[in-house]
């Protein structure tokens, strides 16, 4: 009997000592959410507006790039150079930009959902959605990185082509 009591005590002790500190940290975080609820809402609304500006500016710039590389790829073909690598990268670029747009929509949906949550009465829901929103915002940034990677490959192709093209002074027609 004494041994079983000791065993129960030991288990309890292990649970208390080994219980993850994150549980306490999570409780403290939940308290912070409740305490700073209105400030959090203000910050999130400002962030959403800032990101919308960023999305708008980036979307326009992506369209400008699309116009430029479409024309450049066409000109490469019209100059009888092999434009297959340019075409492939152009296709990849369009697909990556579409993925960026879709990722932004998902992120924007999530941040709107987060703003709509009453963080005073549902702090744990708020924290769960906050984690999801963070992941989706990172995903948007990953898509931006993918587009940039394709663009740098396109630039490399442009430089390679430049090395094969005659200079204006050496008889190349304008």
């Amino acid at each position, binding site marked *: 009997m004494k041994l079983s009591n000791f065993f129960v005590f030991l288990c309890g002790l292990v649970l208390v000592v080994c219980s993850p500190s994150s549980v306490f940290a999570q409780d403290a975080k939940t308290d912070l959410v409740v305490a700073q609820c209105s400030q959090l809402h203000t910050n999130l609304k400002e962030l959403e507006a800032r990101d919308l500006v960023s999305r708008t500016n*980036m979307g326009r710039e992506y369209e400008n790039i699309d116009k430029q590389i479409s024309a450049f790829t066409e000109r490469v073909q019209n100059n009888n150079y092999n434009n297959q690598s340019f075409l492939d990268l152009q296709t990849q670029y369009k697909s990556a930009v579409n993925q960026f747009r879709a990722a932004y929509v998902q992120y924007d949906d999530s941040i709107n959902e987060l703003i709509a949550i009453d963080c005073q009465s549902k702090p744990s829901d708020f924290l769960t959605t906050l984690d999801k929103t963070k992941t989706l915002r990172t995903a*948007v940034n990953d898509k931006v990185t993918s587009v940039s990677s394709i663009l740098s490959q396109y630039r490399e192709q442009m430089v390679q082509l*430049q090395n094969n*093209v005659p200079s204006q002074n050496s008889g190349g027609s304008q």
Partner: protein
Amino acid sequence: MREKIKKSVRRMREKMRKRRLVVALGLAIFASLVLTAVSLTIYKVGDYYRYDLSRPGYESERSNVVSTTTTITYDTSSAFSKEDIDSSISEFDGHTQNISKYNTFGDSSLSDEDLQLTTTTSQ
């Protein structure tokens, strides 16, 4: 009964003939109301309004939107020279630099630190 209906239809037609302008104006207003309702429904249901910075309350954000002044047309047919490609690369670099400048999605705005959700326990 039929006669009555026919008579009332005739009267309506006569009235409409006499007031053609009023009827035409009424139809035009009705058509524009229908078209406005359809476009507003698409705007609302398609969630397009959420990405519209011309809404009230976004005045300060609107000033941060970079406006593109001219629509550039590119030469797609004439022969290439090194200098042409050089200027294309310069323009291309300008666009990619702008992308890096506009991108805010890589910052730490949603981190616990920025949202002040960190608990600093002093030992």
